């Protein structure tokens, strides 16, 4: 099952009156069925905010978000959860401190009345490279990267068609990152998952994404195919600077 995403003029302000700050003035992009779309850009430019708006975690935005042509606001909650899931930037904040990993993974299965729960949980935890015994641990007993993998397992367990991934692998060592990225690729080919992925690592974008948007202060400066990274084919000055800096950082130039 594959879905497309259409974001039109997404705009949001935080705060009221004279203190209001427009964080996104009007973001527009579209993602095809089964595409992996990257969001990169300046820290604080609004990447996580875009994902939070798409998933309606923040809902006081204006503009349109269409999933397979249908407004995300018109989807009943249960259907929305089955369609899209999000992996958060800071896994500590997104895992309940007093819930064991088992509870975290079991809850969505109960809510959505899915069977074979034990089997599904075991597969999800194994898929992200953790031993099954970790089902009985609590978040504070896990390392940063282990928490992140639990968050990924929680998002995958409902087999959503659209995954919103906020820095999914920046807390992982590159060997575990490789396993997670390979898993995401495989799911994409096997089940047609669509991804929107925020990352600061342009090598990950080049490896995973078809196209990517470069954000600066709430605006999409440019949307580029992944091939544009290696030859720095950007035309917007900020996008050029960011790609150039990444090439230097990798020691490529």
């Amino acid at each position, binding site marked *: 099952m594959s879905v497309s995403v259409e974001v039109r003029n997404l705009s949001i302000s935080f705060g009221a009156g004279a203190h209001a700050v427009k964080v996104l003035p009007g973001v527009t992009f579209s993602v095809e069925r089964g595409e992996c779309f990257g969001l990169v850009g300046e820290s604080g430019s609004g990447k996580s905010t875009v994902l939070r708006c798409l998933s309606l975690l923040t809902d006081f935005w204006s503009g349109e978000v269409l999933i397979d042509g249908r407004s995300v606001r018109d989807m009943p909650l249960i259907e929305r959860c089955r369609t899209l899931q999000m992996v958060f930037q*800071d896994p500590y904040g997104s895992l309940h401190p007093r819930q064991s990993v088992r509870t975290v993974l079991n809850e969505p299965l109960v809510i959505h009345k899915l069977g074979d729960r034990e089997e599904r949980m075991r597969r999800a935890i194994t898929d992200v490279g953790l031993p099954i015994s970790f089902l009985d641990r609590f978040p504070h007993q896990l390392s940063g990267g282990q928490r992140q993998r639990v968050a990924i397992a929680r998002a995958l367990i409902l087999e959503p068609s659209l995954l919103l991934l906020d820095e999914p692998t920046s807390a992982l060592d590159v*060997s575990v990152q490789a396993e997670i990225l390979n898993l995401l690729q495989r799911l994409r080919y096997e089940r047609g998952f669509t991804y929107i992925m925020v990352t600061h690592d342009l090598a990950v974008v080049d490896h995973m994404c078809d196209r990517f948007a470069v954000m600066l202060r709430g605006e999409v400066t440019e949307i580029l195919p992944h091939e544009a990274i290696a030859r720095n084919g950007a035309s917007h000055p900020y996008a050029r600077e960011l790609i150039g800096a990444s090439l230097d950082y990798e020691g490529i130039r």
Partner: protein
Amino acid sequence: MEKTILDVQNLRIRYGGSTTEAVRGVSFTLGRERLGIVGESGSGKSTVGRALLRLLPGATITADMLRFDEVDLLSLSEKEMLKVRGRRMSMILQDPKFSLNPIRRVGDQVAETYLRHFKCSRREAHEKAVAMLEAVKIRDAERVFKQYPHEISGGMGQRVMIAMMLLADPDLVIADEPTSALDVTVRLQVLTILDSLVRDRGIGLIMISHDLNLVRNFCDRVLIMYAGKVVETLKAVELDQARHPYTQGLLAAQPRIGGTRQPLAVLDRRPEWLEENA
């Protein structure tokens, strides 16, 4: 690295209620240099950092030596430790937003670090805090000063932690993934600030990171940890000549710009890696 700031010998850490050790005999010394620690997720990197600051309630810490300057960290009372922690030895924690108090304004927390360690007026502390937020390249520092932790971005949170550390002006900094949420441009600017602390002020810096490009270009030496042990120590510039199969596997698993987009190489973790010594 003429002077040794930190001397760690045979450090072992066991979490309360756990049957195995999370850290199994780690030894290293640190001079006025940038020491990188890379390693497997869950290998004990953050645990080592927290043990140095004795931030591990309920865990059992033993070592043949755990010395910071002239201070024996193991025999220090909690009261004496309070004078060392934060002021002389500072850690930038891996989960910035979790480490901040969620119901207090970010800027007040930064200003408080300064007030805690130096005698000055609230107003002065406020000014220092804003200036430091600007120094770590936070746009619109006055606005961010007034925000709560849940209102700032991931990379802003990391920079707030760095600003707090900078204000305390310590001699030893343990930075746990301090720049992973920063775009490359800002990351390089922040690394330059950390670099100048080592070069100009002569502090010791431990940099825990998964970013191989970062440790290769920014650190002097690198420890590689696997399952609670240091399996290899390398000069950073010689990272690519690593001998241990775990380190070699890491290098091979890294995606690269202009790569083939074929599945990435994954590690075949060998049981014997658990046993060997560096």
